[in-house]
C-alpha cells in the first residue's frame, strides 16, 4: 500500500520513474482584485462548458458559486464590516501566538521561531487598513492537488492519477462516473458533470442562450493544473493571465517559500489576519499543492478548517470491517451449531 498520510513527495510515492519537481500554485488573496480573468482563461483553455444558468447568486460579485465540474477556478467575494475584520485580526493573532512552527520545524510547543518576531512586535494595527469599517475578501479558489488526495485514493477505475509533477488529473475517457471521488474530496472540488438541466432551478429545455454540446458528460472533472501546458513547460492558464500576480505558479517548494515570505511581510505591517492555508505538510492531507494566503478563517472562504483525507483512516476501517465480517460468520456459526 502506498503511503496514506504524512509528508511525502507524491510523484515519487506514485513510483514515477522520472519525477519532476512538484508544481503548485500560491494564491495570494491579499492582492486579488476580483477580475475573474483566471476563471475565464481556465474555461477557454480547458474548453469547459457553461456552468449553471447565468443567474445572479446574490453573493456579492460571485455568480459562479463554487468550484465544480466545469468551474475549475472560482473567485469568492466576501464583504465584511468592522466587527468581522477585527475578529479576523484576532484569530490571526491567536494563530501567531500559538507559536505554530513553520513547515518542517521540529517539535510542537517549541518557542516561536525568530522569523515570526516581526509579527509579535507589530506596530499599532488600526492604522494599517485604509478602510477599517469595510473590506472585500476576494480569493480565487482552485483544486488543492493534495499530497494525499482523497479523490485519487478512492477512484476505482484508475481514471484519476498522479502526474509526474505531483498533481492530480482525471482521465475523462477512463472515468465511468461512479462519483466516489466527489464524496472523497475533503474540499468539495471534483464533481461529476451534468448538462445542467438536472439542477433543481434549471428546467429542461429552458436554458438561456444557444449552447454547444457539453463534452464528457457524466464523468468527473476538476482542475488539471493545466497538465497539457505543464508538459510543454508552459504556465497554467489562470496564473498566466492573472494581472496582479495574485496567482503564482512554480515549483511547490518555491511557492511555499514565497508564501511564507509574504505572510511574514504582512505580519510585519501589522496585518495579523494574514495566514497561510495548505503550506503545512503535517496537516490532514499532507500539505496541498495549491497554497493560499487568506485574510480570515478558511471557512469564511468556503474552505474546510481542518480537512483530513479520509483514506488516512482506511487501514483502521479495513480492520474494523474484518472484525465485523468475522462477527457475522461467528453469528452464522452459532445459529447453525447452537443445538435444536
Amino acid at each position, binding site marked *: *500500500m502506498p503511503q496514506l498520510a504524512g509528508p511525502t513527495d507524491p510523484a515519487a510515492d506514485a513510483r514515477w520513474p522520472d519525477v519532476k519537481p512538484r508544481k503548485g500554485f500560491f494564491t495570494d488573496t491579499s492582492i486579488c482584485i476580483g477580475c475573474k480573468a483566471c476563471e475565464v482563461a481556465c474555461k477557454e483553455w480547458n474548453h469547459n462548458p457553461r456552468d449553471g444558468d447565468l443567474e445572479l*447568486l*446574490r453573493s456579492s460579485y*460571485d455568480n459562479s458559486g*463554487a468550484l465544480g465540474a466545469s468551474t475549475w477556478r472560482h473567485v469568492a467575494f466576501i464583504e465584511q*464590516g468592522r466587527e468581522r475584520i477585527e475578529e479576523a485580526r484576532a484569530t490571526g493573532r491567536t*494563530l*501567531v501566538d500559538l507559536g*505554530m*512552527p*513553520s*513547515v518542517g520545524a521540529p*517539535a*510542537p*510547543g517549541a518557542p516561536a521561531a525568530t522569523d515570526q518576531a516581526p*509579527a509579535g512586535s507589530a506596530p499599532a494595527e488600526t492604522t494599517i487598513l485604509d478602510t477599517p*469599517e469595510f473590506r472585500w475578501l476576494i480569493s480565487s479558489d482552485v483544486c488543492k492537488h493534495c499530497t494525499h488526495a*482523497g479523490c485519487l*485514493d478512492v*477512484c*476505482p477505475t*484508475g481514471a484519476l492519477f498522479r502526474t509526474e509533477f505531483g498533481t492530480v488529473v482525471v482521465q475523462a475517457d*477512463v*472515468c*465511468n462516473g*461512479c462519483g*466516489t471521488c466527489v*464524496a472523497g*474530496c475533503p474540499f*468539495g472540488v471534483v464533481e*461529476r458533470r451534468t448538462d445542467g438541466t438536472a439542477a433543481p432551478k434549471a428546467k429542461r429545455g429552458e436554458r438561456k442562450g444557444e449552447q454547444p454540446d457539453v463534452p464528457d458528460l*457524466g464523468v468527473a472533472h476538476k482542475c488539471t493544473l493545466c497538465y497539457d501546458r505543464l508538459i510543454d513547460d508552459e504556465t497554467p492558464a489562470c496564473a498566466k493571465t492573472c494581472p496582479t500576480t495574485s496567482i503564482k505558479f512554480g515549483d511547490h517548494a518555491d511557492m511555499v517559500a514565497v508564501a*511564507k515570505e509574504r*505572510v511574514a511581510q504582512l*505580519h510585519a505591517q501589522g496585518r495579523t489576519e494574514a*495566514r*497561510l492555508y495548505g503550506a*503545512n505538510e*503535517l496537516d*490532514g492531507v499532507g500539505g496541498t499543492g495549491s497554497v493560499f494566503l487568506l485574510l480570515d*478563517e*478558511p*471557512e*469564511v472562504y*468556503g*474552505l*474546510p*478548517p*481542518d480537512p483530513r483525507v479520509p483514506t488516512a*483512516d482506511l487501514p483502521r*476501517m479495513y480492520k*474494523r*470491517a474484518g472484525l*465485523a*465480517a468475522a462477527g*457475522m*460468520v461467528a*453469528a*452464522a456459526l452459532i445459529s*447453525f451449531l447452537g443445538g435444536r
Partner: protein
Amino acid sequence: MTTSEYDSVRPPEPAGRGRLNGKRRRRARMDGGDGSREMQMVPEPDFTSYYGRPVVKPAPWGPGIAGYLFLGGLAGGSAVLGAGAQLTGRAVLRRNCRLAALASVSLGAIALVQDLGRPERFLNMLRVIKVTSPMSLGSWILSAFSAGAGVAAVAEVDRVTGERLPLGPLRGVLHAVESPAGLEAAAFGPALAVYTAVLLGDTSTPTWNHAHNELPFVFVSSASLAAAGLAMVTTPVTETAPARKLAVLGVAGDLVATQVMRRRMDPVAAEPLHDGRSGALLRVSEALAVAGGIGTLLAGRRRGVAAAAGVALVAASALARFGIFEAGIRSAKDPRYTIEPQKRRLAARRAAGVTDDSITTAG
C-alpha cells in the same frame, strides 16, 4: 455590520447571506425557535460559512445506491445462510437462500450500473485492483460473489424446473461445482455485506466519515437480520431455526452497534441520524427491527408470525440503509456538518498542545 452615514441610501438588503440555498437550514440554526426568519446580526460564534454553501460535495448518488447497500447486504447474508443450510442438509432453506442471493445481488448490480455517470463503462471497475479504493475492492468482491452465487442459484433453478434448462453436457459440471460455488459465495458474503460500510466511511461526507468505526458492525448486523428475515418469509419453519437465531443475533447487534455509533460520533455529525427524514427512517427501522426480533423470539415457530416478523426485518434493514444514506447526503449539503466538527477537533488538538498539524498556519 457597519453603520455609516450612507446606510440610509442603500437599497434594502436581501434576506440574508445564506439566501442562495440556505434558507431552511438557516432557520433551523439561526433563529431562537420562535419562527422568526430574521437573520441574526451576530453570527453564531463557532460557525461561519461562505453564503451557506456546502464545503464538501455530496456524492452524486441516487436512491439506487441506497438500494444497493440493502441488496448487497441481503445477498451476502443469504449466501452465508445458504451455505449453512447446504452444510447441515436443509434443502429448502438452501434453495431459497441461494435464489435470494442471486436475485438480490443481480438487482443490486443493476442499480449500481444504472447509477454510474457512464453506465456503458461499468467494466472499467475491473480495470485495476486498488486497495486504497473500497469501491475497487468492492467491485471485485461483488464479481467474485456473483460468480459463486450465480452457479449455485442456477443449479437450484435447474433442479426446481426438473432439469429443463438447456445445459446439455454442462449439467454434470454445474451440479459438480454447485457445492463449492455455494461455499465460495458464502466466503465472499460477509465481505459483500461489509465493504459498503468502508466505502461510506472512506469519504469526506461528514456523517458517514464520522461513523467509520462502527458502521461496519451496523452493516453486517443489518445484513444478517435482513437475510434471516427473508428466509423466514420464504421457508417453512421446520428449516428456519438457524435463520431465527441469526435474526435475533442480527437485531441485537444492530441495536447495540447503532447506539454505540451514535454515541461515539461527533454530536453535530450525528445529528442527521436523529432528526429530519433520515432520522425518521432510522427510527422506523429500529422499531421494525425490535418488533421483528421480538416476534421471532416469542413466536417464530408459527408460520404466520415468522413470515410477518421476516417482512418487518427485511423492511428494517432497507430503511436503515436508506436512512444512513440520506443522513450522509444531507450532512454534505450543509456546511455546518463539515465545519463545526472540524473546528472542534482542531480546537481539541490545540488544547492538548498539538499545534503543528493545522492546515492554517501563521507562517
